[in-house]
């Protein structure tokens, strides 16, 4: 069951207690490794921001620094106007969902969720009400007396989440909370987490290495690589307007085509003119990023026009993957283009034989140009 209906009550709520996070010059070294290299990041109040990067990119180090579990070498972390970089973790008042959930095995579900309330000296009766409320939010009503080892993976995940927000923290941190779940449950929880975030309106920083998860859930994504932020933008902007080769390559599928620059500044691939002028004259070498799903098979052999760029090549391979598939097209210069196609009965590309000569179109508005590596 997917909750795709958005209730009126679920509309974005501005939580007045939510705080913006302002990170400046945050640096952390492990030996010679720059885990974080002078990171600046502004996270807006009530925003869902995802730190996305490959393993070892520094995304978890950044999250742990916000939670207070590692001490940076330099930099500032502010919640609202308050400097937090010297504050011990137990005084930061941020909720956190751990990758392993870190539920206390010697406590029941209710005791786990009630733990932060007990620490804050809430009266038993009020605490019980808040625990029940939190259990209802994560759809675990009635399971309060269960032991942790009686829960399934998905239920543990929900308990960890409830425990992280039950004390109404101003900031919520999540470290790959869905990575231990199977694909179906993970996709279901992504939507649910998004809805809970909307309900609570709390500033949320989410860490994942799964680009699809980041695109699904985030208001903004901060792509991080080698301890530096590569791009911070909305999911659409990250996907459609990647700033560099790393972002283009890491998010979504793509083929990079090196372009040549003519004397008049025109950028072309082979004989096809891709752009009449360079987006930035100081950069000499550009690549065209081609997303496989933005390519389409042309009915007839047409020429590159003002509307679209046309590539010609031979069908080299078909791969069927269920809802879609892809074909590999070998261009004349032996570059391989991947073309995604639907697998419905009408999908013409499936009818082509291996080795057939085809024309592939790319609409001009789908053209993505990025400076070639080392050209920034």
């Amino acid at each position, binding site marked *: 069951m997917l909750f795709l209906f958005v209730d009126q009550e679920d509309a974005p709520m501005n939580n007045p207690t939510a705080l913006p996070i302002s990170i400046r010059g945050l640096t952390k070294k492990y030996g010679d490794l720059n885990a974080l290299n002078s990171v600046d990041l502004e996270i807006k109040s009530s925003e869902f921001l995802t730190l996305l990067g490959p393993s070892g990119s520094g995304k978890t180090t950044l999250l742990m620094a916000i*939670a*207070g*579990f590692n001490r940076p070498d330099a930099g500032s972390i502010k919640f609202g106007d308050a400097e937090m970089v010297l504050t*011990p*973790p*137990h*005084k*930061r*008042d*941020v*909720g*956190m969902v*751990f990758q*392993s959930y*870190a*539920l*206390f*095995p*010697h406590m029941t579900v209710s005791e786990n969720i009630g*733990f*932060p309330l007990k*620490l*804050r000296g809430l009266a038993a009766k009020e605490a019980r009400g808040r625990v029940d409320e939190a259990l209802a939010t994560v759809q675990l009503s009635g399971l309060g007396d269960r032991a942790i*080892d009686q829960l399934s993976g998905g239920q543990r995940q929900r308990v960890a989440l409830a*425990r992280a927000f039950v*004390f109404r923290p101003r900031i919520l941190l999540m470290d790959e909370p869905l990575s231990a779940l199977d694909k179906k449950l993970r996709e279901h929880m992504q939507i649910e987490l998004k809805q809970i975030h909307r309900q609570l309106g709390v500033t949320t920083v989410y860490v994942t290495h799964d680009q699809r998860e980041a695109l699904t859930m985030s208001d903004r994504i901060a792509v991080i690589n080698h301890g530096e932020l590569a791009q911070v933008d909305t999911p659409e902007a990250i996907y459609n307007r990647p700033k560099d080769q790393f972002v283009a390559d890491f998010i979504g599928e793509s083929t990079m085509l090196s372009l040549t620059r003519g004397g008049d500044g025109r950028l072309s691939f082979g004989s096809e003119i891709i752009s009449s002028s360079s987006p930035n004259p100081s950069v000499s070498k550009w690549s065209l990023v081609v997303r496989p799903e933005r390519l389409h098979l042309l009915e007839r052999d047409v020429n590159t026009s003002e509307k679209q760029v046309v590539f010609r090549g031979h069908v080299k391979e078909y791969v069927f993957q269920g809802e879609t598939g892809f074909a590999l097209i070998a261009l004349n210069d032996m570059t391989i283009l991947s073309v995604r196609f639907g697998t419905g009965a009408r999908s013409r590309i499936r009818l082509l034989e291996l080795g057939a000569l085809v024309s592939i179109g790319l609409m001009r508005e789908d053209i993505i140009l990025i400076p070639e590596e080392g050209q920034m």
Partner: protein
Amino acid sequence: MPVSPDIERSMLNGQELKSQKKREEWVLLGLSLPAIFVIALVVILPVGWLFYLSFVDGHGSFSLEHYQKMVEYKSYARVFIATFKVSALTTLICIVLGYPIAYFLAALPSRWSGIFMLAVLLPFWTSLLVRTYAWLVLLQRKGLLNDLAIQIGLWDSPVKLVHNMTGTLIGMAHIMLPFLVLPLYGAMKKIEPDMMQAASNLGASPVRAFGSIYLPLSISGLAAGSLIVFVLCLGFYVTPAVLGGGRVVMVATQITAILEHQFNWGAASALGVVLLLATVLALYLAGRFFKFDTALFGKR
């Protein structure tokens, strides 16, 4: 009448599979026979013999004489009380010293914890007698410890550190310490580091996080270790005999004394039986308070 094909299918290889299973069960039983035999030979027989001897008087006939004496003479009760007192104190000292050691070992990165673990285990590999006599040398009137204490001005004249309760407790605690540290270390190693992070994230001060999370999660290991130490102490002979200098009389030393001076197997056996029963009772009572399965056998 031919068997219907459906029934035939459902019985396919049924007999052969069944007899294969039977054969495996016999083989397993056969493999455990040597162990059963050894246990019978070295445990059940001697203990049974012990029981038998304790009910036989000097003339070879059945009697409760030995048990009667134990009830009548106050000295026996004193020996048992002393035994339990020394064992309890040793266990307490081991807990106080061992908990921080185990915590330290569990907190170290594994390449370092190996080295320090070696330091804890090293005494294990020297003879018990050697370690006990080493303490005798260290603790005596003109020993290393007294000299050092006088030199730095801790006390003025030599203090009696051995041939009394103090010496016995020092020696026993030292020898028993690894038995407490090892299961405790095991329990602490199982506590995920993010448990403490989670506690701290939820607002617990370090002291509070230790009390509400770390201690409860390590308590099964602590209980198991304490129990092992306590039970081993109950029957301890060498160290109390050497370092106690005859002033600390425990059940094991008493048994030896009875055998050496009176050659009374019956009385000695009766003491042994009562000690055994007391130990079993202690184990049973402790088992009711803690779930040892978790720490000792890794079950929940």
